[in-house]
């Protein structure tokens, strides 16, 4: 009973402390919890983005999405398969251990271990060798141009800490044994983890010894998942949270009207589009008319993307004709020009192709992209109006994905953000390439364009940035002209912050960077 009373007193005292210091604590109400404190555990970009507050990579993106030094201060290409990195001197982990090449080696080995679900994030890595305490050489696939992009997303662990806690290898879900880093964190980042109660809160406190100059004025972050959108909005309006990275579009006007809350809205890097099955027959055995370019053009001309923007996206999406966002290297204004909304042309093209009345099923998810359910429900009548015969198949992501990957979807909604690579090589190799070997994993329609494949293969081993991007642009232009996908828009990304938040950095990758956030004094 005494212990109980003591615990009680302690928690009450803590409550008071938290209350008095709350002037600089950012209360973040998120749409969902992080899945783990281990960045190498699950392919979830939200969790990895959150853990950027705790862990650092060797390099990172700046505000213009350029790669700048983080834990590595400089790097050079020794020969076509070897990169040498020099580490920042004087960096310490949250437990006080200094950063050495040993730590980098252990982290690289851990993320590229065969059991790691995230080894795809570092595809070219072969091995690494420690030169001295602050120098490490990485051996990668010959002439691989995107190593730095990949490394922005690879968090560096402390080797000794991993060894002490038997966690040098990533947690193997198949073996069914928990791993220590799932519940504990020891990074070099701007904040350290004080406590994580799943689905309840993550408490972060500032790391005074962070190697970088702090732009923020926070003493900590109180992260609370609030999965119900209405509850999250209520929490913002009642002042129980200061920030959310997911404000429902339909509530933006209401948030705007409140004197204490400001929506922060921009466009995501994610381009939303529609993909066509290109096999000979479709799911019901009918002839696949999508193999006729005129039918795909008719589809593109039938969709009124501007009305979708104004009505369904509340004016916040960016209509596009390209398969990648303007921020992604490889984009040109020419490909960004949207196809005109022109139902007459669409009908004529369809008639020309002898495809009037062509029936197919549109596969959509109700929890995939922003307002996707409304979006797909709006697209169906637009298509039927010009002479298609569309049935909508809409369900949870988990149910729709198998239909898509098995090639049994006729047409599907699709979004690609080119993250974490931030380069159009991502969509080219994963989506547009023919499905062979390790390429074209998301080529669900079974298309094959040898000229695109050839360009991708040349780009994959081209170290000169401009030459490589020119090749990728060419490939993207072909994909656009051939309408492998019908691009719709860059989807909106809506955050909201209370008036306590005076400075917040919002970038298109939808990752809050609270080490730059400032609260009113």
């Amino acid at each position: 009973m005494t212990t109980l009373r003591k615990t009680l007193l302690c928690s009450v005292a803590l409550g008071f402390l938290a209350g008095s210091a709350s002037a600089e604590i950012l209360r973040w109400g998120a749409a969902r919890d992080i899945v783990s404190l281990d960045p190498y555990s699950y392919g979830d970009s939200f969790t990895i983005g959150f853990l950027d507050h705790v862990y650092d990579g060797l390099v990172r993106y700046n505000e213009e999405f350029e790669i700048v030094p983080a834990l590595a201060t400089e790097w050079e290409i020794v020969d076509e398969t070897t990169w040498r990195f020099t580490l920042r001197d004087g960096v310490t982990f949250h437990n006080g251990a200094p950063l050495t090449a040993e730590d980098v080696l252990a982290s690289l080995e851990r993320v590229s271990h065969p059991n790691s679900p995230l080894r795809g994030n570092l595809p070219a890595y072969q091995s690494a060798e420690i030169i001295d305490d602050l120098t490490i050489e990485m051996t990668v696939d010959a002439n691989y141009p995107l190593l730095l992009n990949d490394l922005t997303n690879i968090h560096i662990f402390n080797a000794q800490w991993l060894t002490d806690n038997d966690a040098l290898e990533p947690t193997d879900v198949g073996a069914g044994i928990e791993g220590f880093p799932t519940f504990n964190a020891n990074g070099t980042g701007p904040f350290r983890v004080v406590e994580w109660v799943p689905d309840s809160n993550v408490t972060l406190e500032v790391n005074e010894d962070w190697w970088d100059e702090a732009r923020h004025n926070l003493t900590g972050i109180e992260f609370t998942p609030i999965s119900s959108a209405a509850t999250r909005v209520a929490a913002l309006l009642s002042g129980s949270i200061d920030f959310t990275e997911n404000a429902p579009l339909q509530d933006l006007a209401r948030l705007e009207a409140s004197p204490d809350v400001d929506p922060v809205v921009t466009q995501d890097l994610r381009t939303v589009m529609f993909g066509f099955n290109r096999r000979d027959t479709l799911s019901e055995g009918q002839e696949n008319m999508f193999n006729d370019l005129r039918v795909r053009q008719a589809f593109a001309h039938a969709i009124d993307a501007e009305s979708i923007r104004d009505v369904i996206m509340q004016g916040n999406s960016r209509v596009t004709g390209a398969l990648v966002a303007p921020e992604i290297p490889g984009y040109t204004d020419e490909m960004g020009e949207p196809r005109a909304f022109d139902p007459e042309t669409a009908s004529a093209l369809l008639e020309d192709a002898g495809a009037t009345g062509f029936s197919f099923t549109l596969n959509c998810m109700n929890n995939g992209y922003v307002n996707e359910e409304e979006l797909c429900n709006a697209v169906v009548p637009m298509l039927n109006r010009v002479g298609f015969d569309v049935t909508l198949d809409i369900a949870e992501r988990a149910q729709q994905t198998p239909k898509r990957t098995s090639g049994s979807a006729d047409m599907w909604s699709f979004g690609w953000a080119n993250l974490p690579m931030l380069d159009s090589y991502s969509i080219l190799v994963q989506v547009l390439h023919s499905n062979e070997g390790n390429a074209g994993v998301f080529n669900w329609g079974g298309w094959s364009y040898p000229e695109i494949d050839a360009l991708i293969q040349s780009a994959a081993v081209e170290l000169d940035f401009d030459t490589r991007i020119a090749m990728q642009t060419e490939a993207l232009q072909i994909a656009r002209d051939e309408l492998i996908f019908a691009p719709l828009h860059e989807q909106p990304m809506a955050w909201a912050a209370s008036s306590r938040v005076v400075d917040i950095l919002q970038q298109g990758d939808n990752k809050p960077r609270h080490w730059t956030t400032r609260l009113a004094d």
Partner: protein
Amino acid sequence: MIAFLIKRIGSAILVMLAVAFLAFLIFAVAGDPVEMMVNEQATQADRDALRERLGLDQPFLVQYATFVMNAAQGEFGISYQTQRDVMSLIASRLPATLELVFIASMLSLLIGVPLGVITAIHRGKWFSEGLQFLSIFGVSLPSFVIAIMLILVFSVMLGWAPGFGRGETVQIGWWSTGLLTASGRNAIILPAIALALYEITLVMRIVRAEMLEVLRSDFVKFARARGVPRRIVHYRHALRNCLMPVATLTAMNFGTLIAFALVTETVFQWPGMGLLFIQAVLSLDFPIMAAYLVITSAIFVTLNTLVDIIYAVIDPRLRQEKI
């Protein structure tokens, strides 16, 4: 009594096996968790390798058999998504749900029973008819609507109680309780009311119907004729005869409330089993889904058995028949 218990335990195991079987039938068509686990950069070979390591390439009967064998040894594996041990994950969420359901049940009894008695005694009066009318709302309004309305009024407009979370908790062994701290008690009010409202109206209507029945019976009339005060007749003698169905209802509904809590927990971000389950469903976290379903069915069977035992305790006639 022992034979009775053995029979009950046997049927409980059968029910749980059947539930697990149904769960695996669903998993076979639910989708592919591997697609949720890896990120966009993973190659096909990586995906296939992971699927194989998880045993998801096996036919579903084999997966089911493996699950039952492991479950029999208390091994439910670790979550695909959070990589935490499923049993300790559920155990850590169980207190939140049980506390919520317990408080909701208490509320339903403490409010429902007196209301039922009042509406029965004062049948035809304006306030009892009004309560009857209001109770229709309680039965028919979906619980998420009630929850959102409670949040809007008491959290956003009045600022009396928090609209999400569990407040401060105190750890007693493996049990975490929010009932011992002010913020914890404050946080449980809204979700408990949202969850209890349906049950309150149900209890009230049952007590009322039973009371009306009992008030017409001879022993009540004789008691009144003997000059026993009205209050004692109503609350000691009549009410006692109404409590059997209420006890049944409350106990049986304890399980239903655990299931209903799913919605309440999602709206209020109450870190209980329901929230855990919903998230597991969305990410196809099969180990959690299977364990949750099996454990919930175990709770249902246990409650049914307890109800049968409590019957005997409350009603002396049932006790005598057994002898």
